[in-house]
C-alpha cells in the first residue's frame, strides 16, 4: 500500500514517527504487506465502531451495554485485533493514558467531528513509514 502525503502532513507524522523511533525520509510511505492488511482490517473495524457510536443515545447505560455486547460478538471474527480495539475502547472511556496523549486526542477529535480522516487515523493507531525493526513477542522472552 502506498500513500502520498503533502509536505505538511509528512512533517506532522514525522514528529510522531520520531517519538516512536522510526525514520521517514521519503514522501511516499511504504507499508509492509502485513501492515497494509492490518490497516484495512482496522479501518473496517473503526468504521463499524463509529457507526455504532453514532446510533447511540447519550449517557444511556443500556445502550452502552448493548454496544459492548455487539462489539464483543463482532470482535470474535477479528481475534488479532481484539486487544487493539479493546485498548481503543479503554481510551474512549477512561482517563488511562499510556504516555501518548496525542493518540487519544486525535481519536476524540475524529469522534467529535464524526468523520474519518484516514491518514490521521492511521497515524494515531499505527506507526507509519518504513519499519526498521519490530519486537516479536513470539520470538523473544525478554531483554538483558
Amino acid at each position, binding site marked *: 500500500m502506498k500513500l502520498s502525503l503533502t509536505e505538511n502532513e509528512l512533517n506532522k507524522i514525522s514528529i510522531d514517527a520520531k517519538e516512536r523511533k522510526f525514520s521517514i525520509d521519503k514522501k511516499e510511505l511504504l507499508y509492509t504487506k502485513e501492515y497494509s492488511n492490518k490497516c484495512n482490517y482496522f479501518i473496517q473495524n473503526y468504521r463499524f465502531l463509529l457507526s455504532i457510536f453514532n446510533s447511540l443515545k447519550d449517557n444511556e447505560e443500556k445502550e452502552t451495554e448493548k454496544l459492548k455486547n455487539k462489539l464483543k460478538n463482532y470482535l470474535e471474527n477479528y481475534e488479532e485485533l481484539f486487544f487493539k480495539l479493546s485498548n481503543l475502547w479503554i481510551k474512549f472511556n477512561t482517563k488511562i493514558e499510556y504516555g501518548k496523549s496525542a493518540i487519544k486526542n486525535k481519536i476524540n477529535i475524529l469522534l467529535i467531528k464524526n468523520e474519518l480522516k484516514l491518514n490521521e487515523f492511521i497515524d494515531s493507531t499505527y506507526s507509519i513509514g518504513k519499519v526498521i525493526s519490530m519486537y516479536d513477542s513470539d520470538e*523473544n522472552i525478554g531483554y538483558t
Partner: protein
Amino acid sequence: MSDIKLFKPLYPLTGNGYFYGRVGSGKSYKLKAIVEYYYEKGFKIWDMFGGKRGEGPFWVFPSDELKLWKEYEKEVGLMKHFGPKEYDVMLVYPYFKDELPDQLPQKKPKISSQLMTIYFKDVTIKDISFVIGQVSPNAKYVWNYIVKTLPDNATGADILNLYNKKLKRYRDLNLFKNFIEPLVYHQILVGKNYKYNLNFKEIAKNKKEIFVLCDDYIPNEFKFFIMGYILRKLFYDYIMKDKVHKHNIAMFREMSLFMKVVDSSNQDDVRVQNFRNFISDIARYARSGLYIFGDTQSPAETRGLIEGQDDLLCISEMPSAKDREIVCEQLRKDRRISSRQIAYISTMQPCEMVIIERGKKAIKIKKVQPPKTKCWKQDDGNFLTIWKRIHNEFIDIRKDKNELEDLYAETNFVIENEYEVAGEKNNDISNTEKEIMEEEKEILGNNNKKNINNTKTKVIKSKKEIELERSRQLVEKYSKLNTEELL
C-alpha cells in the same frame, strides 16, 4: 531499544526447565512466558498440574495486563503482535461421576471441554501404586487376573461383578477398597475404544491446542493416578515408541507438592515417593521427547531431581542463603555463576530473572516479557468465577452422564463357570461374613478351581453367546430324542 539486547531461550531443547523463587517472585509468571515461547516453536503443551490454585485452565484467558504490555512495548519498541493472545485450549475433565457438575465451560471453536474415561486394561500396577502406595503381591495377582480375564469391551461394572464372584476372598485388599471400588463407583473405568478414552496420538498431533488437565473435580487421592496415567501412556506408549512427535512439554506448577522428599513412613508418603520417582524417570529421559517444566519455591524441595538435567534453570528472587547455596554452589565452582550474581539473586525484582542454560554462564534478564495469557491474581477468584465473568458459556454433560450410567447399569458379561454352577441363583452379595464364606466355598470349590485353571482363556462369555449355546444344546437334545423316537 538500541541499548537493550533481546533474549531468546535455547532451542532446540535438550532438557527440562526448572523455575525457583520465593512466594510472589513471579516464578509461575515466568514459567508461563517461557512455555509460551516454546509453544510458538512448535511444542505441544501438556499442562498437567495447576497447583493448589488450579491455574491450568487460565490458558483460556488472554492476559488482561494491558498496562504492563504497554510499558513493555515502550522499552522494546513497537511490537509485531500485540501481547495478549487467545490460544486453542482443550480442558480435560476426568470422569468422576459425583464430583463433576452437569455443565462444563466451553466456548467453541477455541475452547473445548472433554470428559476423560480410562480403558481399564491400560491401567498398570505402577498407576495403582500412585493411589494405594505399596502394591502387595496379592493385589498384583488380582489386577492381572482382572485384566487377563475380562474382554476388551468390559466396563467397571464387569470388574465389580467378577470381583464379587470370583475374587471375593480379596475384598479386604487395599486394591479393592481404595482403588477398584471408588473408581467403579465413579464410572471412570470403561472398555477399549470408548469415545471418552484419550486418543493420545490425535491430541499430540494437534500442537496448536493446549492440553489442560483440570483437576478441580478429581478426588485428592486420585490426582497422582490421573497425572501418572496420562504421562505414562504418553511417554512410554507413544513418545518412546515413536508413535508421536518428540516435541512435548509437561508443565507443573508448585512441583514441591509431589517432589518434596518426605519420610516414607506412611502410605501417603509412599504414594508421593512413587510419583516422585516416576517424574524423575521421565525427567532423566527428557530428550526422548517429553520435557518437564515446573516451578517450586525452594530447590531443596526437588533436590536430586535437577542435578545433571538443568538445561534451563530460571531463578527468581531467593532470599534464603541455603536455597541459593543448593542451586548455585556447583555452578559457582564451575564458574558459570559469579558470587556477585548469587548475592544479587537475594534481592531481585519480580520482573527480573537469572537464567542458566546448559553449558552456558548465568545471564541476568532485566525484564521478562509478560505472559500472553492470564496468571492468577489475588483479586481474581478461581477459574470458574472468572469464566462466568468473561465468557459464561457452558456445555451440558447430563446426556453423557446418563450414557455412562446406562453402560454401568448392566454387566455385559457373566462368568461361564459361575453361570453353570449357580444357574439362576441370586447374584446379590450377601451381607454377613458367613454367607460370603459359604458362597465362596460354593463358587471356588475344588472342581471349579480346576475349571478356572483349565479355562484361563475362556472363562467368560457374553450373555448372547451363552443363550445361543443353550439353544443349540436344546436343539441337539430334541433332535436326538426325535431320532430315537423315530428309530
